């Protein structure tokens, strides 16, 4: 049993490393040029956001409409730090600090509001994100107000993107496989039953919320240090909805679904480049149609990694044996 597990683990590791190396190679020979790299960055950031919101909404069943708020905290913290002193250690410190601050805010907000049910929570989180945005607008001296921060040094490259994206996905995946994660899923299924089973529902809801906020903070930091420019308006209600669309499209409760949806939406968005109104209409229709015909999302709560990736990794494992 142990042997099989570790073999599987090696295969996965190989797959992950291989993805990294191939993309890195393509970048270095400029097949993935700057433009595609920007799309790649958007995809990775969206993956982090979608997976972390999925933890809150898809797995724990707590409807949050304020994810962009946490993202903005990470973005501003990191941006302010590296604007002051643009060094790599400072970027990493900024990312960590941003994530921690987002988590702290998530904790402070989550503790009282997560007692609320469903829609009330949605509205409360929405209100919270709005308050955060208004705060950033008004802290003129520090954040440059609505004008935003520009000229943020770029430290994010494919290596860091990869590390943070894989790290986030692993963190959330492992959390969900632990007993804590199962407690969260139990809350989604039936909160009252979970409570009777002795699960401290408030504690687990807050925990999921804090982890989600932490990851959103990381995503924000990556955004700031790749796109040179941030302002409070980038992190409004629509951004939160954007993230939600990814989670819903991929499947509430499916990590690989969120990843797939993040990639899919980035591609759609690139294709619809010059028709932004149509893009929003399309988003809206996707939401409605999926909710009516497939309320569990494209993948539901299934994961696709086992079938597809296993076959792929077996292929590479095979290659080793051949030698």
């Amino acid at each position, binding site marked *: 049993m142990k042997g099989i597990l570790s073999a599987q683990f090696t295969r996965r590791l190989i797959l992950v490393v291989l993805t990294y190396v191939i993309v890195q190679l393509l970048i270095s020979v400029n*097949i993935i*040029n*700057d*433009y595609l790299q*920007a*799309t790649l960055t*958007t995809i990775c950031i969206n993956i982090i956001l979608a997976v972390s919101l999925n933890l809150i909404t898809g797995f724990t069943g707590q409807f949050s409409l304020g994810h962009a708020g946490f993202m903005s905290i990470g973005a501003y913290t990191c941006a302010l730090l590296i604007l002051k002193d643009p060094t790599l250690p400072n970027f990493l410190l900024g990312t960590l600090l941003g994530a921690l601050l987002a988590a702290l805010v998530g904790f402070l907000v989550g503790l009282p509001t997560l007692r609320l049910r469903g829609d009330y929570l949605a509205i409360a989180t929405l209100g919270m994100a709005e308050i955060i945005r208004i705060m950033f*607008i008004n802290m003129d001296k520090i954040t440059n*107000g*609505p*004008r*935003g921060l*520009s*000229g943020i040094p*770029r430290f994010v490259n494919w290596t860091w993107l990869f590390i943070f994206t894989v790290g986030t996905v692993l963190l959330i995946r492992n959390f969900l496989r632990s007993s804590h994660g199962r407690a969260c899923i139990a809350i989604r299924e039936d909160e009252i039953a979970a409570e009777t089973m002795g699960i401290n529902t408030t504690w687990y809801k807050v925990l999921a919320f804090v982890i989600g906020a932490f990851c959103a903070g990381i995503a924000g930091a990556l*955004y700031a240090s790749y*796109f*040179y*420019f941030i*302002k409070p*308006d*980038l992190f409004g209600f629509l951004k939160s909805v954007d993230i939600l669309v990814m989670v819903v499209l991929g499947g509430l409760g499916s990590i690989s679904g969120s990843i797939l949806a993040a990639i899919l939406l980035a591609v759609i968005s690139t294709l619809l*480049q*010059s*028709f*932004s*109104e149509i893009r929003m209409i399309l988003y809206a229709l996707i939401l409605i149609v999926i909710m009516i015909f497939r309320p569990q999302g494209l993948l539901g709560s299934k994961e696709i990694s086992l079938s597809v990736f296993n076959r792929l990794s077996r*292929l590479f494992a095979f290659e080793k044996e051949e030698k």
Partner: protein
Amino acid sequence: MKKYSIIFTLVISMLVFAGCSQTASTNQDVIKIGVNYELSGGVATYGQSSVEGIELAVEQINQAGGINGKKIQLVKYDNKSEPSEATTLATRLMTQDKVVAILGPATSGAFMATIPVANQNKVPVISGSATADNVTVDDKGVKEYAFRICFTDSQQGSAAAKFALENLSTKKAVIIMDSSSDYAKGLAETFTSTFEAGGGTVVAQEAYMAGDTDFNAVLTSIKGKDFDVIFIPGYYNEAGLIIKQARAQGIDVPILGADGFDSPKLAELAGAQALNKVYFTNHYSSVDSSPVVAEFVKAFKAKYNKEPDAFNALGYDLAKFVADALSRAEKIDGESLKKALEATKDFKGVTGTMSVDENHNVVKDIIVIELKDGKQYKTYRVTN
């Protein structure tokens, strides 16, 4: 083995595909210029208007034989009014489409988001309407590949203050500022400093957010104060409503604004009878009688069948300005174009005669337009 060959074929075909898209570009007979504008989203009207002006200018240039025999070809993309999209598109224009310069974006935030890309790729980006002070220069120095052809917010703010002091002889101002825009903050700051340096005082400063519709509360609270002019740094959408509600509450002092007032919507929102004693600084006025302006207005009307606004004029000037530099450049590449742009002197545009200064800004006059019963009535010139 079979699987190997599949992967191998895939990799090869990817390489070939990528190679193709790389070589497809360079055509010697045309000069490619990128157009990176807000064609949809929040400030789509600025982008669309600018592009109309640009297209008219390019049409004229190409009809007259192009630049040293080469036609200009525009590569146009929509940045959806999003700064990050503007960055991505700038990268795409420079690395994939291989343009020699990029026009736009129209707003300062989006424009600034493309500057690092410009400096990295040594391709100039030029905006017709990015007026924020720190666009082309900041405390780290001049941004090498960024230019603009409009005045800055501080030039505009201090022109408004001078006008209030000298032409209107007012001493006590109230500022009602759109605090959600960098533009309005810049204006408010320089208005205040120039106004106070000239002996005036700013009695109160109030703020609002873009999209607000109800200003009664703020107006009621300033009504109790003693003042003789209101300065509204902001855009016509809210300024129109502020003017309407102020006049309805019986506040009838002169109201002063900036180029954000320039839209027929201002009169629709405020109502014609509220628009008396209203002044604003601008790049250009269609009631201006100089021959350059008249000629432009005629050509514009012939093509689009409407009266040109300031963004139309700025877009038009922008394309001509870049074409002028291209015709003087040693070679058609980013670095030579940058040098030519820096050397621009006394370029005669619709929006004024401009010379590029050491900060990549232009030196030109500012026009103040007076409104009477909602119509442009008279223009004044203020020199900074």
